[in-house]
């Protein structure tokens, strides 16, 4: 087997990776990407873009329909078991064992991974403390709050001290404290050499956590780079946000033309993409357009997202 080919530079290597479901729908359409060891790799994209489908193929939970994929130097088609032994997976939808208690969920998971009991007990204890569920250790899973279940799922994914952690919207439903705690833990994991693959709809999370991002839309990768590169390539330096009274906005017809590189219309405001926001605001005022409020800010990943996927994040 030529499984050593790409491992030195990439932990996950995909070329023409395709997912076609039984109903004929193509959810991932020939994507190429490389995840470097020890880095955090992020997937962004609107609902239905194919992020989860991609993650599930990497996690060996979903068969690859076409293309090549190697994970930790191995082929998911023939070495799923060996790959899964070294992965931690946080699925988008929790699939905890509802017939077991909180602690038993971790203990049992450790057994599936053949982790010796003494090690498993120690990790279970640590992880329960880390996700702050030690006081609920003996409780059943079902009565836990949504965020607590999420935290338990995250703890469960770390029980085998994985080399590669796949997190599909890990912080959805977490309160701000829990989210920051998780970020901190993910940094620690990375420092110890683990590689992370994350999907998220929170652009601040992507900026904070990810070294490298890809943006997916309609089953394809539409952009890729570091957060900084993406912003530089796909947005202007600054953004001027304008709000208008409803009638004014309806009657703008073309008054803003030529003021910005690009204008994005959101339901509640207009975004003017420009190198210098203050300067553009002055120009707006010179044209005596009656604005309700104005805000100048730097471009963010959110702007890149809007640009590339033509959709607002908050739908």
């Amino acid at each position, binding site marked *: *087997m030529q*499984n*050593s080919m790409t*491992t030195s530079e990439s*932990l996950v290597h995909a070329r023409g990776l395709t997912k076609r*479901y*039984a109903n004929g729908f193509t959810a991932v359409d020939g994507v190429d990407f490389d995840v470097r*060891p020890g880095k955090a790799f992020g997937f962004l994209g609107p609902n239905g873009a194919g992020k989860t489908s991609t993650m599930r193929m990497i*996690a060996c*939970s*979903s*068969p690859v329909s076409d293309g090549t994929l190697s994970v*930790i*130097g*191995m082929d998911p088609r*023939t*070495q*799923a*078991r*060996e790959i*899964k*032994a*070294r*992965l931690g*997976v946080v*699925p988008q*939808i929790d*699939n*905890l*064992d*509802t*017939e*077991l208690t909180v602690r*038993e969920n971790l*203990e*049992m*998971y450790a*057994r*599936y*991974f*053949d982790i010796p009991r003494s090690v498993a007990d120690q990790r279970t204890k640590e992880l329960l403390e880390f996700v702050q569920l030690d006081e609920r250790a003996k409780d059943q899973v079902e009565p836990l709050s949504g965020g607590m279940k999420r935290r338990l799922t995250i703890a*469960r994914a770390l029980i*085998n001290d994985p*080399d590669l952690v796949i997190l599909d919207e890990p912080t959805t439903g977490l309160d701000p404290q829990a989210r920051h705690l998780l970020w901190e833990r993910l940094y620690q994991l990375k420092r*110890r*050499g*683990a*590689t992370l693959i994350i999907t998220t709809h929170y652009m601040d999370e992507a900026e904070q956590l990810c070294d490298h991002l890809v943006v997916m839309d309609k089953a394809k990768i539409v952009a890729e780079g570091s957060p900084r590169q993406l912003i530089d390539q796909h947005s202007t330096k600054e953004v001027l946000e304008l709000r208008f009274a409803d009638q004014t906005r309806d009657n703008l017809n073309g008054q803003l033309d030529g003021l910005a590189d690009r204008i994005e219309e959101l339901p509640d405001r207009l975004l003017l993409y420009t190198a210098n926001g203050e300067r553009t605001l002055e120009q707006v005022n010179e044209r005596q357009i009656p604005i309700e409020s104005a805000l100048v800010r730097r471009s963010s990943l959110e702007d890149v997202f809007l640009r590339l996927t033509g959709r607002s994040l908050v739908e």
Partner: protein
Amino acid sequence: MTAITQPVQAGPLAEAWSRIWRARRLVERNIMVYRHQWIIIFSGVFEPIFYLVGIGLGLGGIIREVPLANGEVVAYAAFVAPALVATAAMNGAVFETIFNVFFKLNYAKTYDGVLATPMGITEIAIGEMLWALMRASLYAVAMFVIMFFMGLVLSPLGILMIPAALLVAAAFAAAGLAGTSYLRTVNDFDVPMGLIVMPMFLFSGTFFPIELALPEWLVTIIQFTPLYHGINLIRGLSTGIVGIGQLWDLLYLLAFFAVSMWIAINQMERKLIK
């Protein structure tokens, strides 16, 4: 941390064995679930005992003796008791695999979590089969012990009823697993339970010798069903009247087990892998 793992070059037999060995984790999981509620498991011990008392002794008080297929005659209770070992094995196995596995497969999504670990579909199917086999064997063996002390085991061959009951339990556990994967809603339970399990329980020679009581065409149909063979095998060992018929029973049950297990694994794969 990211060293290359060499692919394991294992032969198919070693691979099969390692899957069976890993399947024990699912048995452990089920023991963990039931460890606080053993009473649920034990309650199932009583059902065959109630049948033995109610029908074996109750009806046996009136009927007293039954002729076997070869013309020999045995006490009615000694006729019914070995059949109840087989039905206990069937009921225990079918109940566990139909109801509990259906819940885990369709509502709890338990197996999705398990499949993210080194466990695979084969391990899950075999593990559930083994667990149902263990649960069913408990009922069958309890029944055996009771009939032994009541003097209803008529032959030293009777000790082989235990492995025979394990085979019956395994066959029905596998069939239950295969069957439950075809059910879509809770209402669908009525079909396997009401139209398959219940008639088999009544008409497989459990309470009367079908060859003497039912029309020939019906007997022929029944001879294609698994419980008939389970009962025939176990009753033969209990009464000591064994022949080529019991060899056929054995082969039938082994084949039925193998085919059911194959369907179960394929169906679970179809349901769980998208």
